[in-house]
């Protein structure tokens, strides 16, 4: 390997940033995929796979955390995902498909715009 320069240290550090933020548990955005046996049966694993792929394609995004959790109690509306943006109340999306989660990722996670037609109806009235 050739000799390292001060700017190379910054570059390596930047490449490691997503991993370090994950280990510090620091994320501006938390995307929670509800798993459990019911969620997995309804296809939550494929939703997670899509989210992983979307993140992998966008290396510039460092502060999105993908988290799994147990059943949220609405097994018939699964697959279900909760998106938490910093300083905003959590938004629950239900009856997801791979296409829907791609759109949610693009619009809500990337651009902060809630995709209202996929959200859990009860929470919009609140």
């Amino acid at each position, binding site marked *: *390997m*050739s*000799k*390292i*320069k*001060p700017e190379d*240290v*910054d570059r*390596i*550090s930047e*490449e*490691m*940033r*997503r*991993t*370090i*933020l*994950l*280990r*510090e*548990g*620091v*994320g501006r955005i938390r995307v929670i*995929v*509800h*798993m*459990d*046996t019911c*969620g*997995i049966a309804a296809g939550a694993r494929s939703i*997670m796979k899509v*989210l*992983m792929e979307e*993140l*992998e394609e966008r*290396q510039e995004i460092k502060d999105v*955390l*993908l*988290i*799994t*959790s*147990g059943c949220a109690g609405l097994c018939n509306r699964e697959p279900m995902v909760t998106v938490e943006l910093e300083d905003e109340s959590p938004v629950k999306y239900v009856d997801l498909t791979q296409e829907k989660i791609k759109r949610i990722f693009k619009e809500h996670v990337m651009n902060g715009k809630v995709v209202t037609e996929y959200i859990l109806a009860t929470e919009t009235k609140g």
Partner: protein
Amino acid sequence: MKGYRTNIMVCAGTNCISNKSWEVKEALEAEIAKRGLEDEILVVPTGCVGFCAVGPIIIVQPEGIFYQSVKVSDVSHLVEEHFLKGKLVKSLMYVPPGEKEPIPKMKDIVFFRDQRLIALRSRGMINPERIEEYIGLDGYKALAKALTSMTPEEVIEEVKASGLRGRGGAGFPTGLKWESRKKAKDYPKYVICNADEGDPGAFMDRSIIEADPHSVIEGMAIGAYAIGASYGYIYTRVEYPLAIKRMEWAIQQAREYGLLGENIFGTGFNFNMGIFKGAGAFVCGETTSLVTSIEGRAPEPRQRPPRTELWNKPTVINNVETWANVPAIILEGAEWFSQIGTETSKGTKVFSLAGKINNAGLIEVPMGITLREMVYKIGGGIPNEKKFKAVQTGGPSGGCIPESLLDLPVDYERLTEAGAMMGSGGMIVMDENTCMVDVAKYFLEFLRDESCGKCSSCREGISAMLEIVTNICQGKGREGDIEFLEELGAAVTDTSLCGLGQSAPNPVLSTIRYFRDEYEAHIQERRCPAGVCKELIQYSINPEICTGCLLCVKTCPNEAIVGEKKRPQTINLDKCIKCGVCFEVCKFKAVVIT
């Protein structure tokens, strides 16, 4: 680096590895692959996380979930429940003593909450065998900053202004030490890392090297730049195989990256280093002996000043923890560092908590914290609701501090005034069942074995003190022994050449100072109040409490307990070897020590 959704940080310090954490790590990897999660979840071995009492420890990020005492047999369930289904596993969580509700997150556990990490800043965060992960936590940025934007003088000024003092025990201001060697115009110069950790119960230095070897390398490179040194030694002992392996690997990686070698960062600064493995003699932690050992001779201390110099060349020797603090100071600035701590002791200190304490492990706390907070809050108090008796700080040559001084703030001066010392950070907690005369005897035995024998005051003085203390423990103490110990102790302190001899009487002097009544009970009443010294105690069975369950009869190794079933038992004192097993096994507290 490839993205994962979860990182499982598995503690792989020596303490957890001895509890099979490496097997847990391998089982996790196998189970994760079996479930097809290997592209989503990464298993990362880290250095010591500190809460050794409940190891093996794993921390799940980004949620920060803390699992304790994880066994290989737990792994399959854990992977299915948490990593596949997203459900936390309560049975592996930490439950505070006396409580029922488990605490899921590491940051909410009291043991971790009140710590302040500088030397252990990478704790549980990085794989120590990957330099990129260290760089990810701002590693080598301090070296880049020093080399490209600071003069050696400015580096020394920064370290001086920070108030950093030697973490090996004596507490000499690091910046002043550097400045004096900087002024010397004799080349080549050397920097040495003193990792010859020999105190019983101490594992700070080993843990730092195992967890974050690059922080030590970076600190030494900065120090070398400041004083104009071109080579460094890490002096450690062969009994630290994992620390040596990780440090060797780290040095090799740093060389491959050009962070060690010639023309570092293209600035013309040359620096390289190697590991020197000592055979594990306590006296080698003393700097003049250490230097003599590297030179290939018998490690005997020498008169100082001036002899702390390797090959008669200007040499700076600092402790592992001191070096690990340096990059943080250069990067964050002296002002930041000097705001932490007390008037005379700045920054933080790493301690290893051991002995009769619930949360045994490795901690880093701001200077000025009280011993009470360390023992009762972070340390979780004394097991089995026993009473606290003393805490021994500073290793074999430190001192025992009694309950009345528990509110003492931890800094170099306060501990010295109390007759103990900061030392390198070993802290052994003793409960009411500890005999202080017996403790003094234990440490004197250690020091007698470790004295190099160069000065007669140390060699003969320690032996003489040990003989008297042993006699006291055996009920052969005489009037005047205490006063003679005090006089002899003062003489050994005054007339020994190096720190080992000068501080060797401390265990005796500090126990006499605070627990004189225990010495007196041994001598005048032939009685050991803590019930420890075998020659002075007798075991008997209280017939009114004994139920005749015969548990003691079954466990007695010498068939000394006799009696009928369901009737009170008696101990045959001619056969009793005073091992104390009956006392420990009796469920009714019928066995008494008198």
